[in-house]
């Protein structure tokens, strides 16, 4: 299944209005280190390319890098891990976003109901909690708020471990932005996983756009 690289995916969702973590791409370790210094530490470094969809499983994500030297070392390792099947690759450096809560959000196309926006509780317990809800596009703000309200784990959206409550307007913005991508028939699905709640506001720290089969 064809996908955009993370960098292209980030461009698509950011253009639609999703807030994504600060990021840049670079062709080589020195460039990656420069970008990291510009973004500010700590950063994450990832290997990025259209054929790479499961970065974490393959160890292609290095988190919490705090210096130029660490970024260069990680970047060198990432490039070395690239396989011929990965095609053209680049290095993606992004700001580490801090927050105790993770959501997942996305756009899917159901065979019967067509495009739908999805929102769920993310993080390590996501599968066990299985708290996910959908709304059909087009999504108006009322639908977006109702979608947020239909998660069962509402306590997680309130004030939590010293962090403010989730900014529901900002989260509704993200959901409406995802919904607006339904018009683009070249997009099969969008996955924002995770969407970290930082100081109450949702920030996508990864994005994957899956492309519709060319017909």
């Amino acid at each position, binding site marked *: 299944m064809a996908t955009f690289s993370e960098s292209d995916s980030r461009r698509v969702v950011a253009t639609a209005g999703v807030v994504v973590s600060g990021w840049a791409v670079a062709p080589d370790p020195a460039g990656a280190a420069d970008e990291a210094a510009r973004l500010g530490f700590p950063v994450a470094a990832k290997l990025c390319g259209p054929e790479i969809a499961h970065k974490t499983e393959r160890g292609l994500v290095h988190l919490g890098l705090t210096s130029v030297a660490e970024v260069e070392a990680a970047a060198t390792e990432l490039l070395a891990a690239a396989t011929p099947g990965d095609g053209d690759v680049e290095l993606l450096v992004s700001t580490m976003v801090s927050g105790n809560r993770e959501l997942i959000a996305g756009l899917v196309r*159901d065979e*019967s109901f067509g495009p739908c926006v999805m929102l769920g509780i993310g993080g390590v317990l996501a599968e066990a909690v299985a708290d996910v809800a959908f709304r059909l596009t087009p999504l108006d703000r009322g639908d977006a708020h109702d979608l947020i309200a239909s998660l069962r784990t509402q306590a997680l959206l309130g004030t939590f471990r010293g962090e403010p409550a989730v900014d529901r307007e900002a989260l509704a913005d993200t959901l409406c932005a995802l919904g607006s991508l339904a018009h683009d028939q070249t997009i099969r699905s969008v996955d924002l996983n995770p969407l970290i709640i930082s100081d109450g506001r949702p920030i996508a720290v990864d994005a994957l756009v899956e492309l519709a089969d060319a017909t």
Partner: protein
Amino acid sequence: MSLDLTPLFEPRGVIVTGVSSHPGKFGFVTLHNILTCGFEGPVFAIGREAGTVLDQPVLASVDDVPAEVADLLVICTPVSVNEQILVSAAAKGVKAVFVAAGGYSESGPEGIAAEARLASLAARLGLVLAGPNGQGVVSTPVGLCAQIVAPYPPRGRIGVASQSGNLVSALLNMAEQTGIGVSRSVSAGNAASTSLIDYLEWLADDPETDVALCYIEGLPDGRAFFERVRHVSAEIPVVVIKGGATSGGQRAAASHTGSLASDDRIFTGMARQAGLLRASTIEAAFDAAATFATQPLPQGENVVVLTTAGGWGVIAADAVTAHPDLTLGALSDNLFASIDEMLPPRWSRNNPVDLAGGETRETIPDLLHLVAGHPDVDSIIQLGLGIQGNTAALTRNGPFYPDHGLERIVDFHERQENLYATAAAEASTANSKPILVASELATARPDNPLVTAVRDSGRLCYNSADRAVAALGHVVRYAAWRRGRT
């Protein structure tokens, strides 16, 4: 512009094919049911054996029926002859056909082809085609029971449309049991031409119908259903039972109607957006539909629970509090003061308003009117009635009755139950607020005078506080959804 199903639900006359003298055959049963339930238009029986069936002359062919007297044709004949029957019927001015007969798409490749031919022929002839492989159609305003099964429900305001015939029967049985009647019912069968959404759209404009109650198993084009059903919801509430919510149910649905399942959570989201009221069981769905059919729409989410004794109130308080669409609000100061003036000091001084037992006289009706009239109260659940009626029943059926001076007290208890039920209905109507009376006696002792009086008032006596709360939740949610759209 929705499909005009008037000839299906309000035909001038009806033709039944496949009538034989065998009382077990679909044709015989359908004819019997039409002749039994009060349909006043002409009825024509078509069959291969000449003579009479159920005192009705059996005609050899639809060609023998006079022109322009029958709008509806009910087909109980095998696949091979039905296309010719359609052609003959159209020539006689028939407008709608219900194909009860099976042997179509449910039975394999040949049946699929036959069904496609039937549908395209009906379209060419300008006929509404319902079914095939459906259980039939019921329309109480015209006394029509054109179905292969029982029961024939009492007349009422609920319109039933279903992708399963047996579930129509289940819902009609509940209508019969509770007295909350049905306007129209139809099973879509294989839905070759006319599908669930066509029925729902027609029900939305039907002056006899206040609420639609439907069973959905699969939606081949869920998006189109969504786009259309949200307009139905804007007209009348649509209560939905959805089969195949789990993987086990989805496997069962695939073998029942061949439905392929979407993620049930997508259906849930669609239902919310479209204002559909999704109930988790058929009992809850019927309760919800019965509430829409018999109670006014509330203005808000604030519920007051009235009870004659504590336990019921506590259970109801839990159910209201746990319900995401309902609020168990505190009593307003001036309402509190008025209640305090009316009741002995042992009352609960809180919502639930608990009379703490012992009230047998006019306190309950007075309290109902008082609370219903307060602007902060949107709806009421009344519990703990029927006790006096139950006591009366034990006394009346015991060995000491009618001697020992028991008659007056039995009469009094029975009269009071009647008074309570009447007060609940009157206070509800006068203030245009839902007042739901719940008691397990609704099924435990359906002859209890409270239960019969609630029924006589045209309302549902809910089986439990929990069921009343669940039903009220749907009504409150729908009212809020409608307000949100304007």
